């Protein structure tokens, strides 16, 4: 028994006390001296030109410092390349205040800077701008026949694999077949914290940007490119975040604006977007999907075809992987996958929790339910008959895949066997009861990351890596990994993140932080451990004299031989005897390509949902959800469970209420506020059971983790939609399923 064995336990968040005490500082809380405030003015039209900005009228107000617009922005970088961030899609990134052209509604057209926030806001309201309006198109329906296949672009995007087998013939010859179209509107990330940047002017052209972002290096590189700043002239910091969900993956125009104003005014400036402006920074795109499926007499899939079309802006080819998952989740020899974009006069969509997968999963998993019914099979049994042991997209085995075990455990916990197959066959509490299920698959990715570890003579360990914490638990799991690697209690370890003065880490997205940064943290601690071992071996009588690093272990503040625990030294004694005040080590981690090349690496999940539907009124109440996730090793049961709980809430929101409604006449979102863009509240959320099915996987990375930030969202939306069908016999194929669709 050891107390420094932390991985896989359920410690509380190490940053929890800071958050509840209000001492965790968010980007809008750095109250640097002599701060000025910027307020963004947004376009009321979707397409056209700014013909006049009557800026002098508000410049004349005492306390107004400047009005920035395309008319007076200084010379900035010229080439698109300079504006491209780590995950910029193909095309030309939006350049704020670059030209008078309006290409989407709510486009920022000016920044008013004043001595106080209130004054900046007031002056922004007074600012008169004349526009010349042109016809716009924001309706995806009008572009059904104008879809095009995007040419690469964004990191992580994979064009669908070419067709395999003979999908059309197989569909024609299938015993049973279905064909259906699925749709969902735009959705916005809506993190609680507004996008805010506080830029501190440090004199001499040097700045520190406290910016709400999921990637401080991504923002730093962007700022260097756009404003021509040197490496030492810009530091970007973000240590806490009130939710990101992908909205903070790319540098937002708030940081551009704040930096522009700071450099021009040579004074610290803060820019905070309004809630309405939070609907102008990217979204999950409005998507249409066509699914065709057919089965063989034995209930195996004969043909699977999945085609998706979604919107993008006029200037970028925003891409996500929507259909590819359909070629890998089930065994099928005849598969055709298609993916197209259509250009509209909107802002570019942006990755939002489980981007692509969340959309495609609804199409696939509702279609699977429809297919199961058409073939007369229980939906779970149907999935088991089509279980994929290999990833047929790439023709490789999975590094690990315990989806079958997820099905089994979740079905048992849920009581799936009590379900009767016929729609409208179950009732409870005077309502129609329905049970549905859906499963999903997500990438297990590792990307290059670096970390630094330092230990002081009194045995306090500090580890740093410029990753992010958007509420996922990064601080806690990194502390656990570091503490366990060097045999320390959690209290002896401080993990620091979110600062470009720290070693580089990738943007926090794709569920890869645990795997990527976690491995870097472990490597840095091991590198430090090797130095400590050398010190421990200095005394002639060291009990560890000839030991190699892999023959020793750090446990409970001691360094000892793995095979003979009595041969031990106390860590603190070693450090103190060395005479050094501090030891440090840097390390980075890359995926082990050699080991991984023969495998497909993914996390999986399944969700079971129960609903009760009031038949007369169409109201839907989700009464239970059971979610089982197989994502390698779980580092922290508590923070992981919280992530899955949050994911289920997201899935429920997508199923039943979330939609940003576009008024095509104005080309403008109309419900751009929290009163009318509905996200689930407590009363909507039922009891949720979370099950983690452990997978041993030393191929994905040395820690064996796959990431759980996104996979938990999959399956849920479809499970609820399928449960609604089971309850009512009505198949709603356009989300969200609001009560009017059941009347």
């Amino acid at each position: 028994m050891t107390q420094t064995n932390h991985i896989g336990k359920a410690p509380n968040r190490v940053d929890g006390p800071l958050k509840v005490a209000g001492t965790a500082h968010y980007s809008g809380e750095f109250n640097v001296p002599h701060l000025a405030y910027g307020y963004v003015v947004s376009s009321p039209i979707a397409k056209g030109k700014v013909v006049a900005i009557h800026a002098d009228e508000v410049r004349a107000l005492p306390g107004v410092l400047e009005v920035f617009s395309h008319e007076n922005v200084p010379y900035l970088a010229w080439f698109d390349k300079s504006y491209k961030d780590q995950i910029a899609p193909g095309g030309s990134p939006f350049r704020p205040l670059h030209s008078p052209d309006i290409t989407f509604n709510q486009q920022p057209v000016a920044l008013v800077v004043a001595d106080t926030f209130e004054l900046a806001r007031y002056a922004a309201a007074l600012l008169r701008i004349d526009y010349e309006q042109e016809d716009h198109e924001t309706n995806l329906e009008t572009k059904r026949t104008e879809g095009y296949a995007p040419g690469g672009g964004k990191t992580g995007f994979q064009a669908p694999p070419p067709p395999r087998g003979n999908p059309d013939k197989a569909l024609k010859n299938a015993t049973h077949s279905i064909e259906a179209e699925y749709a969902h509107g735009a959705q916005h990330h809506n993190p609680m914290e507004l996008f805010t940047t506080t830029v501190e002017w440090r004199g001499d052209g040097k700045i520190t940007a406290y910016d709400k972002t999921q990637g401080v290096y991504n923002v730093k590189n962007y700022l260097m490119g756009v404003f021509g700043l040197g490496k030492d002239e810009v530091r970007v910091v973000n240590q806490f975040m009130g939710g990101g969900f992908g909205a903070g993956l790319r540098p937002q125009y708030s940081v551009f604006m704040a930096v522009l104003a700071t450099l021009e005014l040579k004074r610290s400036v803060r820019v905070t977007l309004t809630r309405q402006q939070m609907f102008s920074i990217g979204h999950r795109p409005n998507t249409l999907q066509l699914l065709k499926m057919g089965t063989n007499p034995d209930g195996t899939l004969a043909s699977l075809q999945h085609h998706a079309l979604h919107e993008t802006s006029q200037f970028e080819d925003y891409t996500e992987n929507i259909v590819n998952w359909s070629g890998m989740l089930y065994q099928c020899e005849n598969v055709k996958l298609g993916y197209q974009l259509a250009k509209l006069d909107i802002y570019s969509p942006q990755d939002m929790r489980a981007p692509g997968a969340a959309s495609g999963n609804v199409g696939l998993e509702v279609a699977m339910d429809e297919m199961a019914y058409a073939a007369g099979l229980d939906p779970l049994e149907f999935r088991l008959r089509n279980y994929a042991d290999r990833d047929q997209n790439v023709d490789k085995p999975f590094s690990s895949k315990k989806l079958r075990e997820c099905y089994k455990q979740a079905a048992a916990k849920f009581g799936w066997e009590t379900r009767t197959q016929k729609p409208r066959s179950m009732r409870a509490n005077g309502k129609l009861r329905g049970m549905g299920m859906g499963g999903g698959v997500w990438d297990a990715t590792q990307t290059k990351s670096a970390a630094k570890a330092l230990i002081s003579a009194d045995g306090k360990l500090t580890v740093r890596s410029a990753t992010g914490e958007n509420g996922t638990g990064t601080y806690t799991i990194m502390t656990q990994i570091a503490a366990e690697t060097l045999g320390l209690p959690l209290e002896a370890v401080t993990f620091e993140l979110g600062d470009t003065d720290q070693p580089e880490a990738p943007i926090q997205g794709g569920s890869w932080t645990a795997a990527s940064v976690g491995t870097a943290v472990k490597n840095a601690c091991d590198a430090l451990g090797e130095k400590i071992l050398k010190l421990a071996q200095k005394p002639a009588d060291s009990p560890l004299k000839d030991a190699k690093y892999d023959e020793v272990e750090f446990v409970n503040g001691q360094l000892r031989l793995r095979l003979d625990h009595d041969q031990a030294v106390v860590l603190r004694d070693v450090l103190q005897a060395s005479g050094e005040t501090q030891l440090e080590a840097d390390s980075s981690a890359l995926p082990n390509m050699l080991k991984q090349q023969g495998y497909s690496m993914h996390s999986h999940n399944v969700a079971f949902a129960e609903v009760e539907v009031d038949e007369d009124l169409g109201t839907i109440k989700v009464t239970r959800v059971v979610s089982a996730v197989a994502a390698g090793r779980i580092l922290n049961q508590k923070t992981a469970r919280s992530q899955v709980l949050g994911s289920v809430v997201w899935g429920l929101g997508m199923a039943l209420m979330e939609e940003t409604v576009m008024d095509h006449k104005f080309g403008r979102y109309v419900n751009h506020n929290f009163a009318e863009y509905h996200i689930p509240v407590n009363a909507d959320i039922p009891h949720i059971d979370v099950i983690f099915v452990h997978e041993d996987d030393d191929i994905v990375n040395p820690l064996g983790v796959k990431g759980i930030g996104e996979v938990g969202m999959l399956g849920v939306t479809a499970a609820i939609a399928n449960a609604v069908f089971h309850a009512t016999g009505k198949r709603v194929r356009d989300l969200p399923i609001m009560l009017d669709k059941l009347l």
Partner: protein
Amino acid sequence: MYPFTYSRATDVADAVRDKAGHDGSAYVGGGTNLIDLMKMNVEQPAHLVNVAKLPLAKIEDLPNGGLRLGATATNSDTAWNEQVKARYPLLNQAILAGASPQLRNAATNGGNLMQRTRCYYFYDLATPCNKREPGSGCSAIGGFNRIHAILGASEACIATHPSDMCVALAALAPTVRVSGPQGERSIAFEDFHRLPGDHPEFDNTLAEGELITSLDLPEKGFAKHFAYLKLRDRHSYAFALVSVAVGLEMDGDTITDARLALGGVAHKPWRDHSAEALLKGQHATAETFGRVAAHVVANAVGQGSNDFKIELARRAIVRALKQAAEGKQEAGDVYLGGQ
């Protein structure tokens, strides 16, 4: 938000005088609606008279057997008042169906009556709106109008009054006591809010400078047979798509008196006297309820995205009448969809 001056009134006369002394001024209660509108520049008062601390927060018995609800009593204090719970549980349910506990703790009864529509376009200065800017046009007609009116709308405006509390009040029929530069007067609740007609910029019949001081409920509270049914896009913290307030008096299964009001369907809380008349003297049967419900929506007109409300209202009326007749509702019950 535009700059404004601010004062806190100490008594009613002081408040009325202060407001009359400042052009473009407004009363503010809990501020839960007005301040939001000011942040969006929809309202731009130059001066705010805070009335929340006026000595109008009492809830007290009236000599005629009724109950007086002070205008500055909070929605929460009103809902949970013992008298309200026991004698007017319909009001309790309606208030609790609205907003969130935090909002109800701040919101005042006067402010609740005066709250403005939630029409998306009314809130967005980038789009035309006759209510905000008379003559500019109505964006909701032909636009997205899921939350808009199906009854009593005009060609100028199809907005709805968003309050839940007021739907119960419409059924309970209190008088609204007001005090203004011309003195005091009482307005029947039914005459307080108005239909949009050609002047959607006016939500109600309050004269310039008048302050609501109380709501005087009559004795009859329908405490045995009542229901407040609210249907919305999530189970809490959303405005009503359709809501129904019902109060019945019964003799056995015969309805001897009836009140029926709808929310979320019109520019004002929609009380239907003819439907009430149809209920009186009838047996409480599904057939009766169906007939009355069909009558209420007979002249309803959809605007596109809200077409479903006509059928939804019909069904909701049937359900609410049934619930009221059964008499199993209690104060504190709030309908949460399937539960």
